[in-house]
């Protein structure tokens, strides 16, 4: 099979899986959060509400596409796409399973760098949507987005840097491999246990990056009605929604890859398909944690969020990189290359 055909087929499959995953993630979130809140959740469309995402999608497709007065049209229409595309692009380098079959470009030797770079692209979509909407709430949302995501990009980038140091490679396939040195065995090889500080910073930054509660200031309903997407409806809104959820999946997949040993697990050598199952389970656990946090915590205030990004996460992440480098130089157990 020529490379072009293979890559195209794999991409198509990945996008199909992600879009279905996004739709059912929204159902999972509604079901799970309903249970946490002493409710039942959607159960009318199909058995157990399984057709709810279809109903939602159809509704949004058939909505009238309204363009408010005074918007900057090219940017207004481009912004939703600018949010979705980088979120999908993130998956290009993530190894979802063992072996070349389940990998698109995960042997890219600057994978970690690519991830951090592509992730920051999404902020353009949100900031531009805010600016182009000709709405004061949207402007405030766009401003918040720009400031928040830059503040947390740094902490996240540096926590990934510590992981790259540990694996001595920026390729995501190598990072997964580095979490399975024979001498550790089991889950102690995961960077979650060998790099707990980096893992904690990554988690906090991930919440800010995806702009989910408690860091959902960008679209804080109670303050800014809907923030940057106030003026968006129908499929344009659906694209923002899709962007947020795909990014949530992407960040969970990245956390799995960086800290939870990626696709690894018992018997993957005998049955490679199991690796995909392990990867999926780990990602779903991360997603449930995202939802659980949303149901529990109140929203952080904008200035406190910025304080934490610049005054806590950034210095701690920097110090962590330094300490990691020293530990590796000293060759301590667990930090030997």
């Amino acid at each position: 099979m020529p490379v072009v055909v293979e890559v195209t087929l794999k991409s198509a499959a990945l996008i199909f899986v992600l879009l279905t995953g996004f739709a059912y993630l929204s159902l999972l979130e509604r079901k799970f959060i309903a249970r946490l809140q002493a409710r039942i959740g959607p159960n009318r469309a199909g058995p157990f509400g399984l057709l709810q995402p279809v109903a939602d999608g159809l509704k949004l497709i058939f909505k009238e596409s309204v363009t408010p007065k005074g918007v900057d049209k090219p940017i207004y229409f481009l912004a939703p796409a600018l949010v979705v595309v980088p979120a999908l692009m993130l998956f290009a380098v993530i190894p979802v399973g063992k072996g070349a079959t389940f990998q698109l470009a995960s042997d890219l030797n600057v994978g970690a760098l690519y991830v951090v770079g592509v992730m920051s692209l999404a902020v353009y979509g949100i900031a531009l949507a805010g600016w182009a909407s000709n709405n004061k709430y949207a402007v405030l949302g766009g401003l918040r987005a720009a400031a928040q995501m830059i503040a947390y990009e740094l902490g996240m980038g540096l926590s990934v840097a510590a992981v790259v140091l540990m694996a001595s490679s920026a390729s995501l396939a190598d990072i997964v491999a580095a979490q399975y040195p024979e001498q550790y065995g089991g889950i102690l090889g995961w960077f979650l246990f060998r790099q707990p500080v980096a893992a904690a910073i990554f988690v906090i930054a991930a919440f800010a990056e995806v702009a989910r509660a408690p860091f959902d200031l960008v679209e804080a309903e109670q303050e800014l009605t809907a923030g940057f997407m106030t003026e968006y409806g129908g499929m344009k809104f659906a694209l923002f929604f899709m962007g947020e959820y795909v990014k949530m999946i992407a960040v969970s997949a990245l956390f799995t890859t960086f800290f939870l040993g990626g696709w690894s697990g018992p018997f993957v050598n005998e049955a490679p398909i199991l690796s995909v199952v392990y990867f999926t389970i780990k990602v779903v656990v991360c997603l449930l944690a995202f939802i659980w946090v949303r149901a529990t915590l109140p929203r952080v205030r904008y200035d406190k969020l910025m304080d934490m990004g610049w005054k806590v996460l950034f210095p701690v992440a920097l110090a962590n990189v330094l300490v990691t480098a020293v530990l590796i130089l000293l060759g301590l157990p667990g930090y030997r290359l």
Partner: protein
Amino acid sequence: MLTQTPTPLNEDALKVRVEDVQLDITFEQLKRLVSPRALTGETMLMNMGPQHPSTHGVLRLLLELDGETIVNCIPDIGYLHTGIEKTAEGKTYLKAIPLTDRTDYLAPMSNNMAFCGAVEKLVGIEVPLRAQYLRVILLELTRMNSHLVWLGTHALDLGAMSVFLYCMREREMILDIYEAVSGARMMSSYIRPGGLWRDVPNVFFDLVQRVLDVFPKRLIEYEKLLTKNPMWKDRTVGIGKISAQDAIAWGMTGPCLRATGVKYDVRKAYPYSSYDHFDFDIPTGTNGDVFDRYKCRMEEFNQSLKIIRQALKRLPPGPVMTSDRKVAPPPKHEIAYSMESLIHHFKLWTEGFKAPEGEVYFAVESGKGEYGVLLSGDGTSKPRRVHFRAPSFHNLQPINEMARGQLLADLVAIIGSIDIVLGDVDR
């Protein structure tokens, strides 16, 4: 933060800016409300409401923002004005009660009590002790009902969405009690001049007992989720402060006033419905900020439960309606054989009872503060003038004092913490 170069003062350009916010006031009036910086374009004028998720109804605020910092916050009310006071003038004293349900629709019994208390004071009606004690139980349940909606929406405003649904679940228990006694879950109209519509059914005691059993446990859960949560404290401590003097000067009452340290509660200051028979404390705060208001209300849950327990234990037997047939409708079975009862019945349901000439003010401590009724009788069966002293209205007044210099996100916390119901503000 955005920095724009101030443009030179140009009357035409400024008028466009005034039209932009769509206020029914003239340019000259607006000038007096906002700072001069708004007119040069240095600060942004933004509408919050009347259709906004966290203004608790149709409150409209004109905000002058410097970045996200509030320079001025000007409330614009009246979007839910229903003319309840004027309508009440055309109704007999009995028929005006359903109107009071609809002022502060989250605490209908408190409103019923205030109005009926005023009528009883004007006409001079004695209320049997059993009715007084049942009123106390229902009023305290109503306070909890009102506080539950406050807690839920306040937490929702700050992003803690689960608390909202937990509060609604607990509120359901209280609405069940309303339904059992009056048949209606919200617009109860159960308290009548002279007592209660009817005695409570037997299931009432089981339902109240359920609240007494379940609620303390749930209260501990809320405390775990919010009071001890550093993120919650971040959002509430030191936000929306107001001093005791200012609070009194603006006419604030209820938990908003008590949070500043002033120990004023109508139940203690001017006891009504035998509140002086019960032993309870009045929680107060010290700082007058959002957190202290929150703490005061949370403690009031416990005090309400305490009062209900005492009232249930000491509930005397007897009638729940005054025996004065000029005011109280006669029992149905009497009408069949007593001519006098038939006449009373006919007079009451056609003309209504007459009140003497005079003016009375009667206040109760509702969940939101002092809910007062000014009633002016003219010798007929309809009032000459009715005025409701709505606590939400008075508590909303100093919002500019509280919000100035704070962030947009804090304004949401402040609105939530003063606990307004727009039906009560606009009436």
